């Protein structure tokens, strides 16, 4: 498609439950990025993929968080044993290639609420 599609728009989980978020990048884009927006305007980089390969995972919490981009499937971000502090908006972005100045195109995010 022509837009980055993120599902669901809003996800509510009880503390300790698993949460799984999905992202379909723009068709033809090879790079996928995940960001977490915890406070209203603070973005944190989590992980990036080049096709199905992890490109940069230095922002991923070492425990509980995992992500995949498999061929012919939406990319996913999974959080095991969720905690209250995982409540945030999670944005996915894609870009056509990797390199200086390549703009990333963002989806509208998934709002994760941990109760």
């Amino acid at each position, binding site marked *: 498609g022509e837009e*980055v599609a993120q599902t669901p728009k809003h996800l509510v989980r009880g503390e300790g439950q698993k949460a799984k978020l999905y992202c379909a990048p723009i068709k033809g884009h090879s*790079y996928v*990025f995940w*960001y977490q927006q915890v406070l209203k*305007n*603070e*973005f944190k*980089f989590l992980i*990036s993929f080049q096709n199905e390969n992890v*490109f*940069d995972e*230095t*922002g991923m919490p070492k425990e509980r968080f995992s992500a995949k981009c498999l061929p012919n499937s939406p990319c996913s971000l999974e959080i095991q044993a969720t905690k209250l502090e995982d409540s945030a908006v999670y*944005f996915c*972005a894609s*870009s056509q290639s*990797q*390199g*200086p*100045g*390549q*703009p*990333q*195109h*963002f*989806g*509208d*995010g998934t709002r994760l609420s941990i109760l």
Partner: protein
Amino acid sequence: DQQVKQNSPSLSVQEGRISILNCDYTNSMFDYFLWYKKYPAEGPTFLISISSIKDKNEDGRFTVFLNKSAKHLSLHIVPSQPGDSAVYFCARETSGSRLTFGEGTQLTVNP
């Protein structure tokens, strides 16, 4: 630590006037800065970028200026329109193309 700082949380301007949004950065190693606009409940939308080899880039009503000696960049919007009301983020592209965002500035353009 390669940071970007937007020190003004909000800016209010009259329709038709110029909006100037500012961003400061630390460390001199970078390739690109990018500006994004964000409406509520939507993802950031790319506006314009500038590389380290330039001091100005223009696209329609949007111009970004880079002052390397002051480690400062600014986004000028002229003329401002009510539809420009949004949160504006500057971001720097660091290694691996990850973006580091500033805190954002809420722009309000009054009719």
